[in-house]
């Protein structure tokens, strides 16, 4: 993690105690961040960090595999503690908004789903898993994959880890799912699509 911060010349980092570090960027308030190696940050984990480091501004799950359940996200946001990946932390420090920052990978998509006209209700089950209810009453479970080009394996892993979904949304604006990924989705019983296709689907579903 400190190696990662080394690449960011505009941030200075110092170790405070345990998993707590202090980050500073020019003209921005200092940030107390907890750097967690956990693969999953559930409520118990988050609460214990808060007990240990009551002044933390940001909770960072630095592993690429780190998963955040929806209820953890909710209590962190209510407590005005930022959360997310190492990349989220570095840009939040530079922008001076660590307390309100949320996982960069999913941030725009969370807003997009909540603001979409045909969506009535949004439940965030995990950072990347949503259950949405449309105005027509249709309920959809959506899983997001951030990979550049999701593979069949990425689609199957999502199902293994989070259970069945109706739609796998490839949220990388540069990428497209491979034909194999689309086929794997069809075998499992879900669509593997991009935002444009989802939008059309939400209009009629």
């Amino acid at each position: 993690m400190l190696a990662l911060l080394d690449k960011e010349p505009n941030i200075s980092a110092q170790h405070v105690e345990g998993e707590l570090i202090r980050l500073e960027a020019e003209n921005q308030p200092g940030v107390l961040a907890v750097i967690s190696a956990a693969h999953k940050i559930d409520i118990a984990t988050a609460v214990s960090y808060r007990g240990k480091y009551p002044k933390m501004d940001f909770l960072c799950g630095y592993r690429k595999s780190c998963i955040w359940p929806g209820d953890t996200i909710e209590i962190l946001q209510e407590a005005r503690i930022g959360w997310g990946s190492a990349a989220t932390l570095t840009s939040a420090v530079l922008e001076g908004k660590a307390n309100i920052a949320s996982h960069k990978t999913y941030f725009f998509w969370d807003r997009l789903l909540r603001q979409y006209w045909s969506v009535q209700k949004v439940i965030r089950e995990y950072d990347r898993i949503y259950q949405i209810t449309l105005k027509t009453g249709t309920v959809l479970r959506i899983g997001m994959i951030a990979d550049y080009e999701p593979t069949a394996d990425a689609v199957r892993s999502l199902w293994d880890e989070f259970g069945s979904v109706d739609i796998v949304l490839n949220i990388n604006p540069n990428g497209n799912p491979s034909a194999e990924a689309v086929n794997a989705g069809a075998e499992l019983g879900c669509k593997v699509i991009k935002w444009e296709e989802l939008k059309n689907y939400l209009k009629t579903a």
Partner: protein
Amino acid sequence: MTQRKAIPAETKLRLFSEASGHCQNPDCLEPLFPVELGGAKHIAEMAHVVPHGEAGPRREDRPNDSFDPDVFENLILLCPTCHTKIDKDPASFPRNILLDWKENHLANLATKQGIRAYVNRCIAREAIAGFMAENKAIWNRFAPEHGTDFNYDPESEVAKGWSKRMRSVILPNNYRIQAIIRANLGLATEDERRIFAEFQEHVRGLAERHVCNVSGRAIRFPKAMEDMFL
């Protein structure tokens, strides 16, 4: 040729790869993803050597009646100017001339780009270093997962920028790197030859992805390419 049916993606890809992103007329060799268009659009036209229609240019060069005009062997990639030229004056541009252009295209392009065999690894390295550095700089900024300017933002301009730069800068640079290494394979070690083969596969996948919109086939840039001829 407005009446042509769709040409298969594999044929397109093969044509584009062999043309290395340049018009195959040796007197032209213009880039087909011009920098002035920002890489957003290409100007490449797939021209038929012998035509579909009864009255098309070079009709009399047709080998036999069962000949399929849409096969790779009967297509050549040209800029619009050259396409017009060869179709308006078929007498000056018969089948054998066009096939000859295609056959010698890579050699013609290498000559125009000043690519040749060098006396030692050090000079060969210098010849590719600038193109590799430019590609890497673009990658660091725009890379589709970890670039400093990249965000998972569906409305992001960066995503479009990446694709354009891929076609107007990265791919042409890669073709040029390929041509330089090919001309200097004699200087490469056994390992480097293997890495070069991987690199060629990587470039083929990039073209498939960014020119023909076929995803998921590209292999990653082989890291060891960074040390080629070092």
